[in-house]
């Protein structure tokens, strides 16, 4: 698949000229990727997919209609525009619609987003990296499960008002869970890596990181429920940040009355050691300089030194508040559980502490390596519940003294982030349900452990 800028924009132009409506917007997304999974140190699922889709949205006044298709021949495109127009004519006006995106030049991403060598990695290349992870685990006496992927992703938006934006990018990842042979799910260690450049993926390091955790993670003990000082790994912080964002960092959550930031602008809502922002131009995340309406992404400082600042907008929520979109509209073909807008390239400012320093500074607490099945409990109080997995350790007198069973926590994320005592220096990039996060480890003073599992 070679969706060059010229070919993609030509395709979108063919959609625009077909439109009988007052206005039209055409959104393109394509992917060509492969993913190799392994379990029990054996590759058991291995796949490759190529797909490309156009979603057209047309408007007669404020009557909108949309149609998405992956049938990109002339008949398919013509049919999509025609059907979108039929839908628009039949639909009721959408008062918050005030036209598709005007011509606006997005900012420049600071960093490479496309690595040709990553695009070229084939099934054998992925299998070799999987074999390296498996071999690393095997040498230590462990078996490994995991996944390795690479691919090319293209997105573009064109509107009849003249906006025309395009990006081709590569992405890759590797992850592994290791355990003693025949003990899948017990005494596990986990590690993951995400990046645009597959050459930077070090499978031996990945495997070793997971082994180093698993080695410590046997014969776990229980612990009494209650509040503990907790060191959250960068991965764990990333997932909690996503949920905090989903519950409160977007205009929809404010307009619905759910966000914990309502009425708190410029007030201290988190620890003053915490700054959070969304930046679509920062290449240390997965930067895309425009959103799915073609609007250039603005950096949005959400929390500055603990103070509430702003939330992200798309055009509909911006119209509601009579302001401008910050460029955070989601794809029209996303998981419908998540409403638009939403931050998609989230950062927490790093501190200066190494993992060892975080542990050494803890008299009694818990080190949490990985979280699982986190879900919202109370939006306004940002309470979530979830489990720990793949390494949860008791810290006593500045050192890890024993592994713990997987723990259930029920905790307000904002409260945890208000009690931050130290911020890690190393940042971790991770894909979330929507977008990515770049986060350090955090040591928080209070984290509510509600129960334990049996393993």
């Amino acid at each position: 698949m070679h969706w060059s800028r010229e070919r993609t924009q030509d395709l979108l132009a063919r959609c625009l000229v077909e439109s009988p409506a007052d206005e039209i917007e055409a959104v393109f997304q394509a992917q060509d990727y492969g993913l190799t999974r392994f379990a029990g140190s054996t590759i058991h699922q291995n796949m490759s997919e190529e797909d490309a889709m156009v979603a057209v949205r047309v408007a007669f006044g404020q009557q909108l209609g949309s149609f998405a298709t992956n049938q990109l021949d002339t008949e398919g495109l013509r049919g999509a525009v025609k059907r979108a127009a039929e839908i628009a004519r039949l639909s009721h006006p959408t008062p918050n619609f005030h036209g598709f995106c005007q011509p606006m030049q997005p900012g420049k991403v600071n960093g490479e987003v496309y690595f040709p060598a990553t695009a070229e990695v084939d099934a054998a290349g992925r299998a070799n990296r999987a074999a390296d992870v498996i071999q690393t685990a095997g040498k230590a006496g462990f078996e490994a499960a995991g996944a390795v992927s690479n691919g090319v992703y293209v997105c573009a938006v064109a509107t009849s008002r003249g906006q025309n934006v395009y990006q081709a990018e590569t992405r890759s990842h590797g992850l592994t869970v290791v355990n003693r042979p025949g003990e899948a799910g017990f005494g596990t260690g986990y590690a993951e890596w995400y990046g645009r450049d597959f050459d930077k993926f070090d499978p031996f390091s990945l495997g070793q990181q997971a082994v180093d955790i698993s080695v410590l993670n046997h014969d776990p003990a229980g612990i009494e429920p209650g509040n503990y000082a907790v060191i959250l790994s960068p991965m764990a912080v990333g997932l909690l940040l996503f949920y905090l964002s989903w519950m409160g960092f977007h205009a929809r959550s404010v307009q619905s009355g759910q966000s914990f930031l309502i009425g708190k602008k410029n007030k201290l809502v988190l620890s003053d050691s915490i700054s959070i922002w969304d930046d679509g131009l920062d290449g240390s995340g997965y930067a895309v300089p425009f959103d799915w309406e073609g609007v250039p992404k603005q950096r949005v400082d959400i929390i500055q030194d603990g103070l509430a600042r702003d939330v992200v907008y798309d055009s509909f929520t911006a119209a509601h508040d009579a302001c401008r979109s910050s460029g955070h509209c989601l794809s029209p073909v996303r998981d419908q559980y998540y409403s638009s807008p939403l931050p998609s390239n989230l950062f927490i400012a790093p501190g200066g502490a190494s993992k060892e320093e975080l542990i050494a500074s803890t008299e009694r607490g818990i080190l949490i390596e990985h979280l699982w099945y986190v879900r919202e409990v109370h939006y306004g109080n940002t309470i979530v519940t979830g489990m720990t997995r793949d390494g949860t350790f008791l810290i006593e007198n500045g050192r890890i003294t024993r592994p713990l069973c997987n723990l259930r926590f029920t905790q307000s994320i904002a409260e945890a982030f208000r009690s931050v005592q130290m911020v890690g220096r190393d940042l971790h990039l991770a894909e979330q349900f929507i977008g990515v996060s770049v986060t350090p480890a955090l040591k928080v003073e209070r984290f509510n452990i509600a129960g334990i599992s049996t393993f």
Partner: protein
Amino acid sequence: MALQKWAEDLVEQAVGGGASYADVRVVDRSSEFVQLWDGKIEQLLEHRDRGFGIRVIVDGAWGFAGSSDFSHSVDIIRRALEVARASSVVQHSQVELASISAMKQSWKTPIQIDPRRISFSERIDLLQAADSEMASVQGVTQRKASMGFYFTNQLFTSSEGAEIEQEIVECGAGIVALAAGMNEVQHRSFPASFQGDYGTAGYEYVLGIGLVEGAKQCGEEAVALLSAKECSPGRTTVILDSSMLTLQVHESIGHALELDRVLGSEASFAGTSFATPEKLGNFCYGSPHVTISADATLPHGLASFGFDDEGAPARRTVLIDKGILVNYLTSRETSARLGGLLAPGKNTRSVPISGNMRADGWQRTPLVRMTNINLEPGDSSLAKMIAGTDEGLVMKTVNTYSIDDKRLNFTFSPEIAWEIKNGRLGAMVKNARYSGMTPEFWNSCDAVAGMDEWHLWGIPACGKGEPGQSVHVGHGTAPARFRNVKVGG
């Protein structure tokens, strides 16, 4: 027929290229989704997704490739074979498939009213009527209403001679009312959360939901929750209504009994399962009131079809019989693997191919997935259960949920609850949640309501696998009672 011939040619080319087994699925799926926020259309999207996927076994290892560009078929076959050969390099044992009959059949969802004949205006009018009912309730601060249709035509052809065509139609709708108070937002969904209720059926299914009729109460309950009492922590009797039980069945039984997961295939992502093979036939998963079936043959079930995505016919399989674990959700591969694992003399049970291999479209390889996983009706009733409870809670409609990666430790919460005092329903309760360990919880079940309170719910979102796959599942449930359950806290 031209498409059938084209698919057969692909299978032949794959076999000619070295595949010991090959199947091709061609999937043409159209969906229509409309969503209103506060009575205004925020999303109105039709989506057509058409492509093909080819699955091969080469040198005893799996390969899969898919494309939406039918002119790329030669390249896609080459990719699938390359992927399989790459897999075979890191392979301890060869893939074996339990045998099935190669079927040559077609299957269609029975429908009464073709949703394609219903105009957008009519659909939006229905949603707006429901929205107006919610808006008429003072204190409702935001409303959401949605409706979706899915039309799937699929063709399955295999090197074993299977030729299966299916036409599946799915419909559903739902509404949500939100009420914002001081630092608190409460919400109620109707008829259930997760976009409402869906089924394989025509537009008659949407009409049968009664969106408009249920909307006012939905709004009133959302507002009333703001001033409801908080759930007190402790241990008590819990009665879960039919819609709340869908979650309990889904998370603590359905996922736990996916045999690929049990055998470790999902260890790196979704996790494993406590329900390990040595428990088959002897493990007391629940009380004698608990019988669980997987049944893709049920009329209107959201996961009802003629054949799964490796050509196995839809069937009913009892998974838990009067509390005892007796079967898993299986595929051809996992059924064969389990047969090899069960040591002769120790546990001679084998498990049938249950027809649970399902893929999220042409672009994904099938995985073991739930179909309609059902708690079989009992002989009690909600009224009898309440009357027989001195103190407890009735919980209704799924709110949030979390369970560990072996499907043991769970915390689930309803949108709304009511106290039970001395056999009568009492005050409304908000922010309730209950927790437990799966076997202990199901063993505490002492009553299940009968068939007249049993409903087959359709949930259009169940995730699994890497890359992520979302399939539509069903859960038939009637209210049930559980003793000594940890709540709140």
